């Protein structure tokens, strides 16, 4: 295992202002260039230290580095998915899913509105930091999950795949929405990239 292969910050698939007014350009800039970059940088640092610790046979150091790897690695994984989960309105953001994902949602949740309602309730209730993904088990069921801090969705189950995510860390919305998280949760659906979700669903659930 090559422990020295570094992560790099992925490009945003759209401009920083492209998601306005749902999410401001200022937030997108900070979120991508500072927060996500910090996860990448710190993960690479921890990876480097891990590589040295493994080479030295320093088991304690290896164990000590796990929380940093989990946090920063998770942060990178989660945000890389998150950027793809969003799309400007001009590129289909907010357009509800048709096709097989749409039917699966209607079948398992009753309607798209019901799913959105459920996700918003969970998201608003999540204390502290956290993520919150609607995703697809290998059992072919879609479920709404929350994870704490930067835990990636696999920590909830090894066969879980993210269809959609919403970052409810305060840095994701604070400058624009302050403490009114429910408004952020309401507006983010206007830029939700259902195309991506459908594509993942079709790939993981071939008919």
């Amino acid at each position, binding site marked *: 295992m090559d422990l020295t292969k570094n992560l790099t910050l992925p490009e945003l698939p759209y401009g920083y202002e492209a998601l306005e007014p749902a999410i401001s350009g200022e937030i997108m800039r900070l979120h991508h260039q*500072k927060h996500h970059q*910090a996860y990448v940088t710190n993960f690479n640092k921890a990876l480097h230290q891990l590589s040295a610790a493994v080479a030295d046979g320093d088991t304690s150091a290896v164990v000590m580095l796990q929380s940093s790897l989990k946090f920063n690695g998770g942060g990178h994984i989660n945000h890389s998915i998150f950027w793809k989960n969003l799309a400007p309105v001009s590129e289909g953001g907010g357009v509800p899913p048709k096709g097989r994902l749409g039917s699966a949602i209607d079948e398992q949740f009753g309607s798209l509105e019901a799913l959105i309602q459920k996700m918003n309730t969970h998201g608003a209730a999540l204390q*502290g*930091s956290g993520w919150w993904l609607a995703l697809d088990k290998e059992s072919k069921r879609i479920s709404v999950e929350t994870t704490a*801090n930067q835990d990636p969705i696999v920590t909830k189950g090894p066969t879980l795949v993210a269809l959609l995510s919403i970052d409810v*860390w305060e840095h994701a919305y604070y*400058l624009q929405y302050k403490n009114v998280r429910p408004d952020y949760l309401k507006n983010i659906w206007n830029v939700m990239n259902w195309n991506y979700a459908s594509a993942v669903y079709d790939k993981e659930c071939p008919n």
Partner: protein
Amino acid sequence: MILLSCSSNHCSLSSNVMASAAAPSTILKSSSIFPHLGWGRRRRSCNLPSINRGVSKSTVAYYGLRSPPYKLDALEPYMSQKTLEVHWGAHHRNYVEALNKQLEKNDILYGCTLDELIRLTYNNGNPLPEFNNAAQVWNHDFFWESMQPGGGEMPKLGLLEQIEKDFGSFDNFKDKFIEAALTSFGSGWVWLVLKREKRCLAIVKTSNAINPLVWNDIPIISLDLWEHAYYLDYKNDRAKYVNTYMNHLVSWNAAAARMARAQAFVNLGEPKIPVA
């Protein structure tokens, strides 16, 4: 014990009150009388059981929002008035209101002090829904009082001696505190606590709403690491926020007062046994 809860027009000792009522003066009215003292009394009143439907009930509020011991712009430029307005006026207030709403529906938890409520609802690590709100109300009260205009610098006298004893030097403590703050993941708090069992000072990190009361330790100062505490002023630059707190905001006066009180419960000295 059943109290009369009454507004002045309808307060009646009439026949439809079945309980032997204690005098209405046992209802405490709080911060309207003592707004500026460091200790605010919690406003408490009691729901009458439903037998007393004829008597109109006054507003039920179990806990009140305590103001910080300084004006909202007093911590400028280190913590802006805007931050205080949102952090205290919206976040802290919401915790109080949410807690009051929860307590309306839960008779068992009625009647505790806030400290007791926190320990109770922590439920040994399996927290009840009220825990988050109760703990965050307490945490924010404590946090405002852990800061002061013109804060920072160094503690003095006994507190300084204790820090030097337990950390080697004040600078070492400061470094360790800052390091703890910067290695905290997610939302949470950093505390300087006096550990009851070990009888020494220690630095403790907690996540979300947890505070050292649940382990029966005595907090001395705290730092809020939830992003809402610093995002408006420092954006993602948590390091700058933490350093500014240590250099310009932390109230060693408050810490000294808390230490003094703590020593009523924790014996830090060697017993001075006179030798014959």
